[in-house]
Protein backbone atom coordinates (compact mmCIF):
# COMPACT_ATOMS: atom_id res chain seq x y z
CA UNK A 1 0.00 0.00 0.00
CA UNK A 2 2.65 2.45 1.11
CA UNK A 3 4.89 1.86 -1.87
CA UNK A 4 1.96 2.52 -4.20
CA UNK A 5 1.24 5.76 -2.34
CA UNK A 6 4.86 6.84 -2.62
CA UNK A 7 4.88 6.02 -6.31
CA UNK A 8 1.76 8.09 -6.82
CA UNK A 9 3.21 11.04 -4.94
CA UNK A 10 6.44 10.74 -6.90
CA UNK A 11 4.47 10.72 -10.11
CA UNK A 12 2.57 13.81 -9.06
CA UNK A 13 5.74 15.62 -8.09
CA UNK A 14 7.25 14.57 -11.41
CA UNK A 15 4.39 15.94 -13.42
CA UNK A 16 4.51 19.17 -11.42
CA UNK A 17 8.19 19.55 -12.19
CA UNK A 18 7.49 18.86 -15.85
CA UNK A 19 4.73 21.46 -15.90
CA UNK A 20 6.94 24.00 -14.22
CA UNK A 21 9.81 23.36 -16.63
CA UNK A 22 7.47 23.57 -19.61
CA UNK A 23 6.00 26.84 -18.36
CA UNK A 24 9.38 28.45 -17.74
CA UNK A 25 10.73 27.41 -21.13
CA UNK A 26 7.54 28.46 -22.93
CA UNK A 27 7.66 31.88 -21.30
CA UNK A 28 11.34 32.31 -22.11
CA UNK A 29 10.67 31.35 -25.71
CA UNK A 30 7.74 33.77 -26.04
CA UNK A 31 9.38 36.80 -24.46
CA UNK A 32 10.93 38.23 -27.65
CA UNK A 33 7.68 38.38 -29.62
CA UNK A 34 5.57 39.45 -26.62
CA UNK A 35 8.05 42.22 -25.87
CA UNK A 36 8.05 43.32 -29.51
CA UNK A 37 4.26 43.56 -29.57
CA UNK A 38 4.18 45.64 -26.37
CA UNK A 39 7.11 47.82 -27.40
CA UNK A 40 5.53 48.61 -30.76
CA UNK A 41 2.73 50.49 -28.94
CA UNK A 42 5.08 52.54 -26.78
CA UNK A 43 5.10 56.32 -27.52
CA UNK A 44 8.24 57.52 -29.27
CA UNK A 45 8.73 60.35 -26.75
CA UNK A 46 9.23 57.84 -23.94
CA UNK A 47 12.60 56.20 -24.74
CA UNK A 48 13.52 52.96 -23.03
CA UNK A 49 15.98 52.80 -20.18
CA UNK A 50 17.30 50.21 -17.80
CA UNK A 51 14.36 48.38 -16.20
CA UNK A 52 11.83 50.35 -18.24
CA UNK A 53 11.39 48.57 -21.57
CA UNK A 54 7.81 47.30 -21.45
CA UNK A 55 4.63 49.34 -21.10
CA UNK A 56 4.72 53.11 -21.04
CA UNK A 57 1.95 55.12 -19.39
CA UNK A 58 -0.04 55.21 -22.64
CA UNK A 59 -0.43 53.05 -25.72
CA UNK A 60 -0.15 54.49 -29.18
CA UNK A 61 -0.52 53.36 -32.76
CA UNK A 62 1.71 56.14 -34.10
CA UNK A 63 4.78 53.88 -34.54
CA UNK A 64 2.95 51.91 -37.18
CA UNK A 65 1.79 54.98 -39.07
CA UNK A 66 5.25 56.55 -38.86
CA UNK A 67 7.02 53.40 -40.05
CA UNK A 68 4.52 53.18 -42.89
CA UNK A 69 5.30 56.77 -43.92
CA UNK A 70 9.08 56.46 -43.62
CA UNK A 71 9.41 53.59 -46.10
CA UNK A 72 7.15 52.33 -48.91
CA UNK A 73 5.86 49.33 -46.97
CA UNK A 74 2.71 49.28 -49.10
CA UNK A 75 4.79 48.61 -52.18
CA UNK A 76 6.87 46.03 -50.28
CA UNK A 77 3.67 44.22 -49.32
CA UNK A 78 2.51 44.10 -52.90
CA UNK A 79 5.90 42.82 -54.03
CA UNK A 80 6.05 40.07 -51.43
CA UNK A 81 2.47 38.96 -52.10
CA UNK A 82 3.01 38.94 -55.87
CA UNK A 83 6.24 36.92 -55.53
CA UNK A 84 4.73 34.39 -53.12
CA UNK A 85 1.65 33.93 -55.33
CA UNK A 86 3.61 33.60 -58.59
CA UNK A 87 5.87 30.99 -57.04
CA UNK A 88 2.92 29.12 -55.55
CA UNK A 89 0.86 29.00 -58.74
CA UNK A 90 3.74 27.96 -60.99
CA UNK A 91 5.05 25.42 -58.49
CA UNK A 92 1.67 23.79 -58.05
CA UNK A 93 1.45 23.26 -61.80
CA UNK A 94 5.01 22.03 -62.31
CA UNK A 95 5.06 19.68 -59.32
CA UNK A 96 1.70 18.12 -60.12
CA UNK A 97 2.71 17.48 -63.74
CA UNK A 98 6.16 16.12 -62.89
CA UNK A 99 4.93 14.15 -59.88
CA UNK A 100 2.24 12.59 -62.06
CA UNK A 101 4.76 11.62 -64.74
CA UNK A 102 7.07 9.97 -62.22
CA UNK A 103 4.22 8.17 -60.45
CA UNK A 104 2.17 7.04 -63.43
CA UNK A 105 4.53 6.26 -66.29
CA UNK A 106 7.47 4.01 -67.05
CA UNK A 107 9.88 5.61 -69.49
CA UNK A 108 13.47 5.50 -70.62
CA UNK A 109 15.87 7.28 -68.25
CA UNK A 110 13.25 7.73 -65.51
CA UNK A 111 15.64 6.98 -62.65
CA UNK A 112 18.32 9.30 -63.95
CA UNK A 113 15.92 12.16 -64.63
CA UNK A 114 14.48 11.76 -61.15
CA UNK A 115 17.95 11.86 -59.65
CA UNK A 116 18.75 14.96 -61.69
CA UNK A 117 15.68 16.75 -60.35
CA UNK A 118 16.50 15.68 -56.79
CA UNK A 119 19.89 17.40 -57.09
CA UNK A 120 18.01 20.58 -56.30
CA UNK A 121 17.17 19.20 -52.87
CA UNK A 122 20.81 18.49 -52.08
CA UNK A 123 22.16 21.87 -53.18
CA UNK A 124 20.11 24.69 -51.65
CA UNK A 125 19.55 27.63 -53.96
CA UNK A 126 21.21 30.01 -51.52
CA UNK A 127 24.56 28.30 -52.15
CA UNK A 128 24.26 29.22 -55.82
CA UNK A 129 23.39 32.87 -55.52
CA UNK A 130 26.55 34.14 -57.21
CA UNK A 131 26.18 32.23 -60.51
CA UNK A 132 22.38 32.61 -60.44
CA UNK A 133 22.89 36.34 -60.18
CA UNK A 134 24.82 36.21 -63.48
CA UNK A 135 22.07 34.12 -65.08
CA UNK A 136 19.40 36.62 -64.02
CA UNK A 137 21.49 39.47 -65.46
CA UNK A 138 21.93 37.58 -68.71
CA UNK A 139 18.18 36.97 -68.90
CA UNK A 140 17.67 40.71 -68.38
CA UNK A 141 15.53 40.15 -65.30
CA UNK A 142 17.61 42.01 -62.72
CA UNK A 143 15.53 44.04 -60.27
CA UNK A 144 12.19 42.48 -61.16
CA UNK A 145 9.78 40.45 -59.08
CA UNK A 146 10.05 37.66 -61.61
CA UNK A 147 13.77 37.44 -60.86
CA UNK A 148 13.02 36.73 -57.19
CA UNK A 149 10.56 34.00 -58.11
CA UNK A 150 12.00 32.24 -61.15
CA UNK A 151 14.70 30.05 -59.50
CA UNK A 152 11.93 28.35 -57.52
CA UNK A 153 9.59 27.55 -60.41
CA UNK A 154 10.69 23.95 -60.46
CA UNK A 155 10.67 22.24 -57.08
CA UNK A 156 12.43 18.95 -56.49
CA UNK A 157 10.93 18.78 -53.05
CA UNK A 158 7.40 19.37 -54.34
CA UNK A 159 7.87 16.90 -57.17
CA UNK A 160 9.05 14.32 -54.67
CA UNK A 161 6.12 15.02 -52.35
CA UNK A 162 3.51 14.77 -55.13
CA UNK A 163 5.06 11.61 -56.54
CA UNK A 164 4.78 10.01 -53.09
CA UNK A 165 1.19 11.15 -52.73
CA UNK A 166 0.22 9.96 -56.23
CA UNK A 167 1.91 6.59 -55.71
CA UNK A 168 -0.31 5.90 -52.72
CA UNK A 169 -3.46 6.29 -54.85
CA UNK A 170 -4.88 2.75 -55.29
CA UNK A 171 -4.03 1.21 -58.68
CA UNK A 172 -7.62 -0.02 -59.09
CA UNK A 173 -8.83 3.55 -59.07
CA UNK A 174 -6.34 4.52 -61.75
CA UNK A 175 -7.21 1.51 -63.89
CA UNK A 176 -10.91 2.29 -63.56
CA UNK A 177 -10.22 5.81 -64.72
CA UNK A 178 -8.28 4.57 -67.73
CA UNK A 179 -11.06 2.13 -68.66
CA UNK A 180 -13.58 4.96 -68.42
CA UNK A 181 -11.54 6.69 -71.09
CA UNK A 182 -9.95 9.43 -68.99
CA UNK A 183 -7.28 11.40 -70.80
CA UNK A 184 -4.07 12.10 -68.86
CA UNK A 185 -5.26 15.41 -67.49
CA UNK A 186 -8.65 13.97 -66.55
CA UNK A 187 -6.74 11.24 -64.73
CA UNK A 188 -4.86 13.90 -62.77
CA UNK A 189 -7.94 15.99 -61.97
CA UNK A 190 -10.39 13.19 -61.17
CA UNK A 191 -8.28 10.35 -59.83
CA UNK A 192 -4.89 11.50 -58.58
CA UNK A 193 -5.54 14.98 -57.17
CA UNK A 194 -8.58 14.55 -54.87
CA UNK A 195 -6.87 12.19 -52.39
CA UNK A 196 -3.60 14.19 -52.63
CA UNK A 197 -4.98 17.55 -51.56
CA UNK A 198 -3.44 17.34 -48.05
CA UNK A 199 0.02 16.95 -49.60
CA UNK A 200 -0.67 19.88 -51.90
CA UNK A 201 -1.78 22.08 -49.00
CA UNK A 202 1.19 21.01 -46.92
CA UNK A 203 3.56 21.93 -49.72
CA UNK A 204 1.74 25.20 -50.39
CA UNK A 205 1.91 26.34 -46.77
CA UNK A 206 5.59 25.58 -46.35
CA UNK A 207 6.40 27.16 -49.72
CA UNK A 208 4.47 30.33 -48.89
CA UNK A 209 6.14 30.57 -45.47
CA UNK A 210 9.57 30.03 -46.90
CA UNK A 211 9.22 32.62 -49.65
CA UNK A 212 7.44 35.22 -47.55
CA UNK A 213 10.40 35.09 -45.18
CA UNK A 214 13.21 34.79 -47.68
CA UNK A 215 15.82 37.53 -47.54
CA UNK A 216 19.23 36.94 -49.12
CA UNK A 217 18.26 36.17 -52.71
CA UNK A 218 15.75 39.06 -52.94
CA UNK A 219 18.37 41.33 -51.38
CA UNK A 220 20.94 40.76 -54.10
CA UNK A 221 18.56 40.52 -57.03
CA UNK A 222 16.57 43.70 -56.35
CA UNK A 223 17.80 47.25 -56.45
CA UNK A 224 14.73 49.45 -56.15
CA UNK A 225 11.48 49.71 -54.24
CA UNK A 226 9.45 48.64 -57.24
CA UNK A 227 10.59 45.03 -56.75
CA UNK A 228 11.99 44.93 -53.20
CA UNK A 229 10.03 42.59 -50.88
CA UNK A 230 9.19 43.13 -47.20
CA UNK A 231 12.22 41.36 -45.74
CA UNK A 232 14.77 43.31 -47.75
CA UNK A 233 12.74 46.48 -47.19
CA UNK A 234 12.80 45.93 -43.43
CA UNK A 235 16.57 45.57 -43.30
CA UNK A 236 16.93 48.71 -45.39
CA UNK A 237 14.55 50.46 -43.03
CA UNK A 238 16.51 49.44 -39.92
CA UNK A 239 19.63 50.91 -41.49
CA UNK A 240 18.07 54.30 -42.28
CA UNK A 241 20.10 56.99 -40.58
CA UNK A 242 17.18 58.63 -38.77
CA UNK A 243 15.96 55.39 -37.17
CA UNK A 244 18.82 54.57 -34.79
CA UNK A 245 17.73 52.86 -31.61
CA UNK A 246 14.06 53.88 -31.76
CA UNK A 247 12.93 50.48 -30.64
CA UNK A 248 9.20 51.17 -30.70
CA UNK A 249 9.46 52.22 -34.33
CA UNK A 250 11.70 49.26 -35.22
CA UNK A 251 9.41 46.73 -33.58
CA UNK A 252 6.38 48.20 -35.33
CA UNK A 253 8.10 47.79 -38.70
CA UNK A 254 9.31 44.31 -37.76
CA UNK A 255 5.85 43.16 -36.80
CA UNK A 256 4.30 44.67 -39.91
CA UNK A 257 6.59 42.51 -42.02
CA UNK A 258 5.73 39.35 -40.10
CA UNK A 259 2.05 40.05 -39.37
CA UNK A 260 0.08 38.62 -42.32
CA UNK A 261 1.85 35.28 -42.25
CA UNK A 262 1.98 35.21 -38.47
CA UNK A 263 -1.72 35.91 -38.04
CA UNK A 264 -2.59 33.29 -40.64
CA UNK A 265 -0.42 30.90 -38.69
CA UNK A 266 -2.20 31.71 -35.42
CA UNK A 267 -5.59 31.04 -37.01
CA UNK A 268 -4.61 27.80 -38.76
CA UNK A 269 -2.05 26.71 -36.18
CA UNK A 270 -2.84 23.01 -36.29
CA UNK A 271 -2.94 22.88 -40.08
CA UNK A 272 0.39 24.72 -40.28
CA UNK A 273 2.22 22.49 -37.86
CA UNK A 274 0.78 19.36 -39.45
CA UNK A 275 1.87 20.64 -42.84
CA UNK A 276 5.42 21.13 -41.70
CA UNK A 277 5.49 17.60 -40.32
CA UNK A 278 3.85 16.20 -43.39
CA UNK A 279 6.16 17.93 -45.83
CA UNK A 280 9.16 16.96 -43.76
CA UNK A 281 8.50 13.31 -43.19
CA UNK A 282 7.26 12.10 -46.54
Amino acid at each position, binding site marked *: MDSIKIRKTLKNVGSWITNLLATILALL*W*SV*PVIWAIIASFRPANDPMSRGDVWFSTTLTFENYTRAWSLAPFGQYYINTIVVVLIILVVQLITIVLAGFAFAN*YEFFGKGWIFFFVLLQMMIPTSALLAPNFS*TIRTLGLFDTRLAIAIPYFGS*AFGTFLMRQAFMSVPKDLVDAGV*IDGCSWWQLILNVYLPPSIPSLIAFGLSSATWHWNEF*LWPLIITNSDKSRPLTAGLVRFTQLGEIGAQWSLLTAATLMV*AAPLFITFLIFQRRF*IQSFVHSGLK
Partner: protein
Amino acid sequence: MLASRKSSKALPYILIFPTAVFVALFTAWPVLLSIYQSFFLQRMNIAKFREPTYVGLGNYIDLFTDPYFIEVIKNTLVYILGTVPISIILGFLFALLVNRKVRGIGFFRLAFFHPMVLPMVSAATIWLFFFTPDYGLFNSTLRLLGYTGPENWTGNPNLALLSVVIVAIWKNSGYYMVFYLAGLQNLPNDVYEAAALDGANGWQTLWRITFPLLRRTTLFITIVAFIDSFRTVDHIFVLTSGGPSRASTVLLFELWLERFEYQDIGASAAITVIFVVVLLAFTVTNFITSDRKEA
Protein backbone atom coordinates in the same frame (compact mmCIF):
# COMPACT_ATOMS: atom_id res chain seq x y z
CA MET B 1 -2.64 1.45 -66.57
CA LEU B 2 -1.54 -0.13 -69.82
CA ALA B 3 -3.68 2.20 -71.86
CA SER B 4 -2.39 5.27 -70.08
CA ARG B 5 1.14 4.09 -70.60
CA LYS B 6 0.57 3.70 -74.31
CA SER B 7 -1.05 7.09 -74.81
CA SER B 8 2.08 8.87 -75.95
CA LYS B 9 5.73 8.09 -75.59
CA ALA B 10 6.70 11.71 -75.37
CA LEU B 11 4.09 12.68 -72.78
CA PRO B 12 6.04 11.94 -69.56
CA TYR B 13 9.01 13.90 -70.89
CA ILE B 14 6.77 16.82 -71.76
CA LEU B 15 5.23 16.77 -68.28
CA ILE B 16 8.63 16.79 -66.57
CA PHE B 17 10.09 19.32 -68.99
CA PRO B 18 9.15 22.51 -67.05
CA THR B 19 10.60 21.20 -63.79
CA ALA B 20 13.72 19.86 -65.51
CA VAL B 21 14.35 23.15 -67.32
CA PHE B 22 14.26 25.19 -64.11
CA VAL B 23 16.43 22.66 -62.27
CA ALA B 24 18.88 22.74 -65.16
CA LEU B 25 18.94 26.52 -65.34
CA PHE B 26 19.15 27.30 -61.60
CA THR B 27 20.85 24.24 -60.10
CA ALA B 28 22.90 22.35 -62.67
CA TRP B 29 24.10 25.25 -64.81
CA PRO B 30 25.25 27.45 -61.89
CA VAL B 31 27.30 24.55 -60.52
CA LEU B 32 29.02 24.06 -63.88
CA LEU B 33 29.51 27.81 -64.33
CA SER B 34 31.10 28.08 -60.88
CA ILE B 35 33.49 25.22 -61.52
CA TYR B 36 34.57 26.93 -64.74
CA GLN B 37 34.85 30.42 -63.26
CA SER B 38 36.77 29.16 -60.25
CA PHE B 39 39.79 28.55 -62.51
CA PHE B 40 39.93 32.17 -63.60
CA LEU B 41 41.05 35.40 -62.03
CA GLN B 42 38.33 37.95 -62.55
CA ARG B 43 37.63 41.01 -60.40
CA MET B 44 34.98 43.42 -61.56
CA ASN B 45 36.19 46.35 -59.44
CA ILE B 46 39.77 46.37 -60.75
CA ALA B 47 40.07 47.50 -64.37
CA LYS B 48 42.97 45.25 -65.41
CA PHE B 49 41.31 42.15 -63.91
CA ARG B 50 37.93 42.68 -65.53
CA GLU B 51 38.65 40.19 -68.27
CA PRO B 52 39.08 36.64 -66.91
CA THR B 53 42.57 35.09 -67.01
CA TYR B 54 43.21 31.42 -66.42
CA VAL B 55 44.94 30.76 -63.08
CA GLY B 56 44.37 27.03 -62.59
CA LEU B 57 43.83 26.27 -58.92
CA GLY B 58 45.03 29.75 -57.99
CA ASN B 59 41.75 30.84 -56.42
CA TYR B 60 41.61 27.74 -54.23
CA ILE B 61 45.24 28.13 -53.18
CA ASP B 62 44.68 31.80 -52.37
CA LEU B 63 41.67 30.93 -50.24
CA PHE B 64 43.28 28.18 -48.24
CA THR B 65 46.45 30.17 -47.59
CA ASP B 66 44.46 33.20 -46.51
CA PRO B 67 44.22 33.32 -42.70
CA TYR B 68 40.94 35.21 -43.05
CA PHE B 69 39.37 32.36 -44.96
CA ILE B 70 40.68 29.83 -42.45
CA GLU B 71 38.99 31.88 -39.78
CA VAL B 72 35.76 31.84 -41.79
CA ILE B 73 35.92 28.04 -41.93
CA LYS B 74 36.56 27.94 -38.21
CA ASN B 75 33.61 30.24 -37.59
CA THR B 76 31.42 28.05 -39.78
CA LEU B 77 32.37 24.95 -37.80
CA VAL B 78 31.75 26.73 -34.50
CA TYR B 79 28.40 27.95 -35.83
CA ILE B 80 27.35 24.44 -36.91
CA LEU B 81 28.54 22.80 -33.69
CA GLY B 82 26.89 25.56 -31.70
CA THR B 83 23.49 25.45 -33.38
CA VAL B 84 22.85 21.90 -34.61
CA PRO B 85 23.24 19.73 -31.47
CA ILE B 86 21.65 22.20 -29.07
CA SER B 87 18.64 22.93 -31.30
CA ILE B 88 18.08 19.20 -31.76
CA ILE B 89 18.32 18.47 -28.02
CA LEU B 90 15.97 21.37 -27.27
CA GLY B 91 13.61 20.19 -30.01
CA PHE B 92 13.52 16.75 -28.39
CA LEU B 93 12.95 18.24 -24.94
CA PHE B 94 10.15 20.49 -26.22
CA ALA B 95 8.50 17.53 -27.94
CA LEU B 96 8.56 15.52 -24.70
CA LEU B 97 7.08 18.45 -22.79
CA VAL B 98 4.37 19.06 -25.35
CA ASN B 99 3.47 15.43 -26.04
CA ARG B 100 1.15 15.12 -23.06
CA LYS B 101 -2.58 15.21 -22.60
CA VAL B 102 -2.80 18.32 -20.44
CA ARG B 103 -5.17 21.22 -20.82
CA GLY B 104 -3.59 24.21 -22.52
CA ILE B 105 -0.90 22.14 -24.21
CA GLY B 106 -1.68 24.03 -27.43
CA PHE B 107 -0.24 27.15 -25.81
CA PHE B 108 3.09 25.42 -25.16
CA ARG B 109 3.23 24.10 -28.70
CA LEU B 110 2.60 27.62 -29.99
CA ALA B 111 5.22 29.08 -27.67
CA PHE B 112 7.93 26.76 -28.96
CA PHE B 113 6.97 26.75 -32.63
CA HIS B 114 6.06 30.36 -33.42
CA PRO B 115 9.64 31.65 -34.06
CA MET B 116 9.70 29.32 -37.07
CA VAL B 117 7.02 31.35 -38.84
CA LEU B 118 8.75 34.71 -38.35
CA PRO B 119 11.09 35.98 -41.03
CA MET B 120 14.66 35.54 -39.80
CA VAL B 121 15.28 39.26 -40.35
CA SER B 122 12.34 40.12 -38.06
CA ALA B 123 13.56 37.71 -35.42
CA ALA B 124 17.04 39.19 -35.62
CA THR B 125 15.76 42.76 -35.37
CA ILE B 126 13.95 41.88 -32.15
CA TRP B 127 17.07 40.17 -30.81
CA LEU B 128 19.14 43.20 -31.71
CA PHE B 129 17.28 44.93 -28.91
CA PHE B 130 17.77 42.00 -26.53
CA PHE B 131 21.52 42.24 -27.04
CA THR B 132 21.58 46.02 -26.52
CA PRO B 133 24.02 46.96 -23.74
CA ASP B 134 22.61 48.34 -20.49
CA TYR B 135 18.82 48.16 -20.94
CA GLY B 136 18.57 45.23 -23.40
CA LEU B 137 16.49 42.41 -21.93
CA PHE B 138 19.06 39.69 -22.50
CA ASN B 139 21.67 41.59 -20.53
CA SER B 140 19.20 42.64 -17.84
CA THR B 141 18.24 39.00 -17.32
CA LEU B 142 21.84 37.84 -17.26
CA ARG B 143 22.71 40.55 -14.74
CA LEU B 144 19.95 39.26 -12.47
CA LEU B 145 21.69 35.89 -12.64
CA GLY B 146 24.99 37.46 -11.61
CA TYR B 147 26.55 38.08 -15.03
CA THR B 148 29.13 40.87 -15.01
CA GLY B 149 30.82 40.30 -18.38
CA PRO B 150 30.77 42.49 -21.48
CA GLU B 151 27.30 43.53 -22.63
CA ASN B 152 27.88 44.59 -26.20
CA TRP B 153 27.23 41.10 -27.58
CA THR B 154 26.99 41.85 -31.27
CA GLY B 155 29.99 44.19 -31.24
CA ASN B 156 32.35 42.05 -29.19
CA PRO B 157 34.69 39.80 -31.24
CA ASN B 158 34.36 37.03 -28.67
CA LEU B 159 30.58 37.17 -28.40
CA ALA B 160 29.36 38.17 -31.88
CA LEU B 161 29.30 34.62 -33.23
CA LEU B 162 27.65 33.37 -30.05
CA SER B 163 24.90 35.97 -30.35
CA VAL B 164 24.17 34.79 -33.90
CA VAL B 165 24.12 31.18 -32.65
CA ILE B 166 21.62 32.05 -29.91
CA VAL B 167 19.17 33.57 -32.37
CA ALA B 168 19.41 30.54 -34.66
CA ILE B 169 18.73 28.18 -31.74
CA TRP B 170 15.75 30.24 -30.65
CA LYS B 171 14.35 30.27 -34.16
CA ASN B 172 14.85 26.61 -35.13
CA SER B 173 14.33 24.45 -32.05
CA GLY B 174 10.54 24.55 -32.38
CA TYR B 175 10.81 23.39 -35.98
CA TYR B 176 12.73 20.27 -34.93
CA MET B 177 10.28 19.77 -32.07
CA VAL B 178 7.52 19.23 -34.61
CA PHE B 179 9.35 16.31 -36.22
CA TYR B 180 10.02 14.67 -32.87
CA LEU B 181 6.40 15.22 -31.96
CA ALA B 182 5.30 13.36 -35.06
CA GLY B 183 7.80 10.61 -34.26
CA LEU B 184 6.59 10.31 -30.68
CA GLN B 185 2.98 10.05 -31.74
CA ASN B 186 3.80 7.22 -34.12
CA LEU B 187 5.55 5.10 -31.50
CA PRO B 188 3.91 1.74 -30.77
CA ASN B 189 1.98 1.73 -27.51
CA ASP B 190 2.53 -1.92 -26.63
CA VAL B 191 6.26 -1.42 -26.09
CA TYR B 192 5.47 1.09 -23.37
CA GLU B 193 2.91 -1.15 -21.76
CA ALA B 194 5.46 -3.96 -21.64
CA ALA B 195 8.06 -1.61 -20.16
CA ALA B 196 5.59 -0.42 -17.52
CA LEU B 197 4.81 -4.03 -16.61
CA ASP B 198 8.53 -4.71 -16.24
CA GLY B 199 8.67 -1.83 -13.79
CA ALA B 200 10.84 0.49 -15.89
CA ASN B 201 10.80 4.04 -14.59
CA GLY B 202 10.24 7.09 -16.73
CA TRP B 203 13.91 7.86 -17.18
CA GLN B 204 14.77 4.31 -18.27
CA THR B 205 11.83 4.26 -20.69
CA LEU B 206 13.03 7.53 -22.19
CA TRP B 207 16.64 6.50 -22.80
CA ARG B 208 16.21 2.78 -23.50
CA ILE B 209 13.04 2.87 -25.57
CA THR B 210 11.91 6.30 -26.77
CA PHE B 211 15.24 7.68 -27.88
CA PRO B 212 16.43 4.55 -29.74
CA LEU B 213 13.07 4.21 -31.48
CA LEU B 214 13.39 7.78 -32.71
CA ARG B 215 16.83 7.17 -34.24
CA ARG B 216 15.61 7.72 -37.78
CA THR B 217 13.82 10.91 -36.83
CA THR B 218 17.03 12.14 -35.24
CA LEU B 219 19.00 11.33 -38.37
CA PHE B 220 16.50 13.15 -40.54
CA ILE B 221 16.49 16.21 -38.28
CA THR B 222 20.27 16.25 -38.24
CA ILE B 223 20.35 16.47 -42.04
CA VAL B 224 17.76 19.24 -42.06
CA ALA B 225 19.54 21.14 -39.28
CA PHE B 226 22.92 20.81 -40.95
CA ILE B 227 21.68 22.18 -44.27
CA ASP B 228 19.75 24.94 -42.44
CA SER B 229 22.88 26.00 -40.62
CA PHE B 230 24.66 26.42 -43.94
CA ARG B 231 22.06 28.27 -45.88
CA THR B 232 20.75 30.88 -43.46
CA VAL B 233 22.79 34.00 -42.78
CA ASP B 234 19.93 36.52 -42.72
CA HIS B 235 20.41 37.18 -39.00
CA ILE B 236 24.09 37.92 -39.54
CA PHE B 237 23.16 40.80 -41.87
CA VAL B 238 20.96 42.33 -39.16
CA LEU B 239 22.98 41.58 -36.04
CA THR B 240 26.68 41.83 -36.85
CA SER B 241 27.24 42.24 -40.62
CA GLY B 242 29.80 39.48 -40.19
CA GLY B 243 31.91 41.54 -37.81
CA PRO B 244 33.57 42.82 -35.84
CA SER B 245 36.49 42.18 -38.23
CA ARG B 246 34.91 38.98 -39.60
CA ALA B 247 34.47 37.41 -36.16
CA SER B 248 30.97 36.27 -37.11
CA THR B 249 31.47 35.64 -40.83
CA VAL B 250 30.47 32.14 -41.92
CA LEU B 251 30.86 30.51 -45.33
CA LEU B 252 27.72 31.79 -47.04
CA PHE B 253 28.26 35.30 -45.71
CA GLU B 254 31.84 35.19 -46.98
CA LEU B 255 30.53 34.07 -50.36
CA TRP B 256 28.24 37.10 -50.42
CA LEU B 257 31.10 39.39 -49.40
CA GLU B 258 33.46 38.10 -52.08
CA ARG B 259 30.91 38.33 -54.86
CA PHE B 260 28.94 41.45 -54.02
CA GLU B 261 31.25 43.57 -51.88
CA TYR B 262 34.70 42.73 -53.33
CA GLN B 263 33.34 41.84 -56.80
CA ASP B 264 35.73 38.90 -56.95
CA ILE B 265 34.14 36.45 -59.40
CA GLY B 266 36.93 33.86 -59.23
CA ALA B 267 37.06 33.64 -55.44
CA SER B 268 33.29 33.58 -55.09
CA ALA B 269 33.06 30.80 -57.70
CA ALA B 270 35.68 28.78 -55.80
CA ILE B 271 33.74 29.22 -52.55
CA THR B 272 30.54 28.15 -54.32
CA VAL B 273 32.30 24.97 -55.48
CA ILE B 274 33.59 24.26 -51.96
CA PHE B 275 30.10 24.86 -50.66
CA VAL B 276 28.49 22.46 -53.13
CA VAL B 277 31.12 19.78 -52.52
CA VAL B 278 30.59 19.91 -48.75
CA LEU B 279 26.82 19.69 -49.10
CA LEU B 280 26.94 16.84 -51.61
CA ALA B 281 29.49 14.93 -49.55
CA PHE B 282 27.28 15.29 -46.52
CA THR B 283 24.12 14.15 -48.30
CA VAL B 284 25.86 11.23 -49.98
CA THR B 285 27.41 10.08 -46.69
CA ASN B 286 23.98 10.17 -45.15
CA PHE B 287 22.43 8.16 -47.94
CA ILE B 288 25.13 5.54 -47.59
CA THR B 289 25.12 5.29 -43.81
CA SER B 290 21.37 5.45 -43.31
CA ASP B 291 19.56 2.15 -43.65
CA ARG B 292 16.52 3.46 -45.44
CA LYS B 293 15.49 1.34 -48.38
CA GLU B 294 13.19 3.56 -50.39
CA ALA B 295 13.70 7.27 -49.93
